[in-house]
């Protein structure tokens, strides 16, 4: 208790009183003492200031890691943008070369067909009248999914627009006769995927930021009635009524949809190639089919070996033997 009483009642350092007494007695401090005191005071100030400055910096390790991640993200995004740009340039060159060669071939019908297919597959940018459907999270939903930690939020907020909602609207638009669809400026091709990871919605693995604007090109009136008659219209109504998701549908006289980010060529064939040509096409896939069908028809024995499938492996003699 004496300790606490000491602290409470006599907080001033007794040294000050002693020093005052000494001064009254007429003792002056030596010159070296004064210099030492000044130096020590400077050191005290320095140390304290450093300590304060150091303490005011919020967790240098975490900050550095965050900075590094941010710069990495920015660098990679720039790389991806540059690659995308290069891709666009190359595709434009390709399209120009294609149209040149088609013009040289003198087949306007083929050129028209190609144009139409390119527009439908999302390979080229298109423009025209259409419908615009906007989905926005309910106002009760907190910060954007990008800012929140998906693991902490748990994903239980009902007013949030889900990948399912976007999928249903997009499918409804296709079913209503849309010729081209884009979500937040990202053109959909027949291979596009709309998925969610955490609470963000991704189209072709690119994250979207709400509001979600789904643009479809086609006859606006037909699209609107088709959407209302289809499953998507009642679904949107239910979203609005039950979860207060904000939705709006409006027609637009002119929409411009960009080309899809990646269009992959999966199969190709020359134009004059029809059914018989497929037999001579791929040796591995079609080779075994004629051999098995040809085997029962000729007499067993030597004729089978002189047939068209002489190059096939040992499977055909085993079928011939019985």
């Amino acid at each position: 208790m004496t300790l606490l009483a000491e602290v409470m009642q006599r907080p001033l350092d007794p040294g000050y009183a002693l020093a005052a007494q000494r001064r009254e007695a007429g003792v002056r401090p030596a010159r070296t003492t004064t210099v030492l005191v000044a130096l020590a005071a400077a050191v005290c100030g320095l140390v304290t200031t450093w300590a304060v400055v150091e303490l005011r910096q919020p967790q240098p390790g975490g900050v550095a890691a965050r900075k590094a991640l941010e710069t990495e993200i920015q660098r990679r995004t720039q790389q991806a943008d540059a690659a995308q740009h290069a891709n666009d340039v190359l595709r434009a060159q390709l399209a120009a070369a294609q149209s040149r060669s088609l013009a040289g071939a003198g087949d306007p019908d083929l050129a028209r067909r190609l144009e139409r297919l390119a527009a439908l597959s999302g390979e080229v940018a298109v423009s025209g009248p259409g419908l615009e459907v906007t989905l926005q999270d309910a106002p009760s939903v907190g910060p954007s999914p990008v800012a929140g930690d998906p693991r902490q939020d748990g994903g239980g907020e009902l007013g949030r627009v889900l990948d399912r909602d976007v999928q249903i609207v997009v499918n409804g638009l296709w079913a209503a006769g849309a010729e081209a669809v884009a979500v937040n400026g990202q053109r959909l091709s027949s291979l596009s995927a709309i998925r969610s990871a955490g609470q963000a919605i991704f189209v072709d693995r690119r994250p979207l930021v709400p509001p979600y604007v789904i643009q479809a090109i086609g006859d606006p009136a037909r699209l609107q009635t088709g959407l209302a008659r289809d499953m998507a219209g009642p679904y949107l109504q239910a979203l609005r009524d039950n979860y207060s998701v904000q939705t709006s549908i409006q027609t637009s006289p002119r929409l411009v949809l960009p080309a899809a980010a990646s269009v992959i060529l999966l199969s190709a064939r020359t134009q004059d190639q029809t059914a018989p040509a497929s037999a001579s096409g791929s040796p591995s896939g079609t080779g075994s089919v004629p051999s098995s069908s040809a085997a029962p028809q000729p007499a067993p024995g030597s004729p089978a070996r002189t047939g068209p499938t002489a190059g096939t492996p040992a499977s055909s003699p085993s079928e011939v033997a019985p």
Partner: protein
Amino acid sequence: MIAALGLLVGIIAGLLLEPTVPLWLQPYLPIAVVAALDAVFGGLRAFLDGIFDDRVFTVSFLSNIVVAALIVYLGDQLGVGSQLSTGVVVVLGIRIFSNAAAIRRHVFKA
């Protein structure tokens, strides 16, 4: 007064120079700052009492910081680091409060 000048020089130098405090010193920083605050308030009160002394101020400042750091170190070694830190902060906090009250009486006469 020379001590106050020295302190000022030190603070300015500390602000201008980039501080790189070694990692092993980090746990002692908060308590050292509190101790330094205690010394500053004590010095201010002594100045208002008219008995300020450079030597006493500097020595009390230095010893405050060193003793506070030492107590935290000792506590860490004994496994009672956080409790001892709390104790030091409580005692120094009481002293800072009563010194601040004395300064207030000097300044406002109330």
